């Protein structure tokens, strides 16, 4: 299926997010970022700390206001001021899973309340019986027992807490979930459990994920397409294997070269590339967002475009 035929669920158009300090010049955390996420896919967003990847996720769930550009959900604008009905729909259909399950659950509330808080906010249940049924179903879907509803978060392990975080998102019957480093703070043996759960839920419910992570090995495993972000700018975007096999942008190449490989022979002779931003001469020839091969985009100026095209053969 070509990309033009696929249903676009989220579209970012020239997204810019700024943070204002006292008297200082506003800091551009996200700078003119545009991309589309198709229904049913997992879109991976990678970049280093402070690159703006989390800010993009937060802008989509409308926590961070935009300084410029717009966000479309199924073709309708959801950034800025929007009608109340649409607001309700978006609140429900777009959910988020947070990084640290130790910090993202209310310690003083029972699981029952934590999971149904979203429903309370939108009045998403008929009566008490309906709400309890929904909570039980959400807990079962993430592999927990309905009895757990009467317990407090501190009674659970990290992996179980992340499952509660996922149940809280699922109960809203979302179509799109922003997953912000959902497994980074989990233990190695628990990560696989949560990754598998997320894949299963995606298959059974037709969910679309924006998977934000700095762990490129996980992204390679779970994402269909990957965008690489550096200092607020999207520098490269392609299907996962295409990106890992044929990276063009020097930052992407440096990032990929640094991934640890769990194979001593390969890892010990691995060559790590260092990215030097001054390798681009953008003084005259300004960079633009171009498609080098079908579906593979990169931020480059004319000279670089010629170079990348030569690499593509």
């Amino acid at each position, binding site marked *: 299926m070509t990309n033009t035929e696929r249903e676009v669920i989220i579209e970012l158009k020239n997204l810019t997010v700024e943070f204002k300090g006292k008297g200082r010049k506003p800091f551009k955390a996200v700078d003119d970022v545009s991309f589309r996420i198709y229904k049913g896919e997992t879109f991976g967003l990678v970049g*280093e*700390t402070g690159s703006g990847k989390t800010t993009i996720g937060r802008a989509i769930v409308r926590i961070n206001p935009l300084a410029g550009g717009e966000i479309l959900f199924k073709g309708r604008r959801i950034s800025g001021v929007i009608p109340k009905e649409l607001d309700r729909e978006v609140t429900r259909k777009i959910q988020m899973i947070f990084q640290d399950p130790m910090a993202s659950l209310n310690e003083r509330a029972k699981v029952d309340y934590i999971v149904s808080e979203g429903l309370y906010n939108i009045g998403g249940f008929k009566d008490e019986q309906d709400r309890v049924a929904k909570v039980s179903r959400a807990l079962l879907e993430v592999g927990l027992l309905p009895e757990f509803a009467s317990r407090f978060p501190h009674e659970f*392990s990290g*992996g179980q807490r992340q499952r509660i975080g996922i149940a809280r998102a699922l109960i809203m019957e979302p179509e799109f979930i922003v997953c912000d480093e959902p497994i980074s703070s989990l*233990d*190695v*043996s*628990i*990560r*696989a*459990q949560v*990754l*598998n759960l997320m*894949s*299963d839920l995606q298959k059974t419910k037709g969910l679309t994920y924006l998977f934000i992570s*700095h*762990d*490129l*090995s*996980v992204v*390679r*495993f*779970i994402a269909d397409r990957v965008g690489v972000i550096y200092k607020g700018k999207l520098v490269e975007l392609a299907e996962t294997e295409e990106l890992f096999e044929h990276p063009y942008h020097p930052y992407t190449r*440096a*990032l990929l*070269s*640094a*991934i*640890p*490989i*769990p*194979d*001593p*022979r*390969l*890892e*010990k002779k*691995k060559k*790590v590339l*260092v*990215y030097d931003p001054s390798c681009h001469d953008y003084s005259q020839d300004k960079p633009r967002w171009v498609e080098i091969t079908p579906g593979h985009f990169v931020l480059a100026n004319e000279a670089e475009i010629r170079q990348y095209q030569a690499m593509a053969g």
Partner: protein
Amino acid sequence: MTEPILSVRDLVVKFSLRGQILTAIRGASLDLYPAETVAIVGESGSGKSVFTKTWLGMLDANGWVDSGSILLEGKDLARYRTEREWLTIRGKKIAMVFQDPMTALNPLRTVGMQIQEVLELHHGMRGEEAKARTIEILGEVGIDMPEARYDQYPHEFSGGMRQRVVIAIAVACNPKILICDEPTTALDVTIQAQILELIRSLQKKLGVTLVYITHDLGVVANVADRVAVMYAGEIIEYGTVEEIFYDPRHPYTWALLSSLPQLGVKGQPLYSIAGTPPNLFTEINGDAFAPRNPKALKIDYVKRPPFFQVSPTHSAKTWLLDPRAPKVEPPETIKALQAKYEGYAQ
């Protein structure tokens, strides 16, 4: 073979928590040889940090070494009780680099002073001499313009640069053993690669023995000569890095390697370990991993396995290696690793 410089035997460490006794280390033994790099791998709560902290007398106040010995240069550190005794070891003989460079430095003192302090305390250096050496060390750990950086505070440094400073403090007194406790977990991959490179080059230059604690098997493959795998307070398998990665024998090591996304097949479920690690408040009978091991033998629930030797450098604590044990096939991912290794050998 050369003599070990540190020899830990049957170490048992307990903690008292809310009136209950938790056994964090359940009889772990390890030898360290000069100038080698040993990686200790395990998930949180496996006891890898606690294990190494006992070598420096840095256990929390509610913890103690219950039995076992830690021999360093003929002295048994397990018998050390006073701070005065520990000060002859800590920093001087054994130094430690911590996980989070954001909290390991004193925010109120300049970076230069924090390194210089070590030189003054341990080497008796003073004034200009100490300052000159500090600037030299800053340069050695890869900090540009060390003269200017000397007077700066930790908040003026990035995460990677701060970790370099922490490493500088640790190597300032030329310790015999350097313990790095997840030194790159809080850092980005590109910075992580740089710090690993720095640690490796410093080790070569100083000839220090490196103990690297991590849960990241990719990092282990990068730094380690030998690997010890910890689970529930025990070392369950150790061997050279190639033996652990290409021919692991313990079901937990199998599971740990198999659950790596790098070794998974896209679109298929990733191998995952069911359940959670055991509760260390209760006594564990048999193999601690048995309840999570679908292929566990009956004896695994009854009797704790001893170490079985696979090669002179490789041993694993699993009944599967007993001659009487039935043949249990490792998971497909492990077989693929073995096949890959045979490919390298040819």
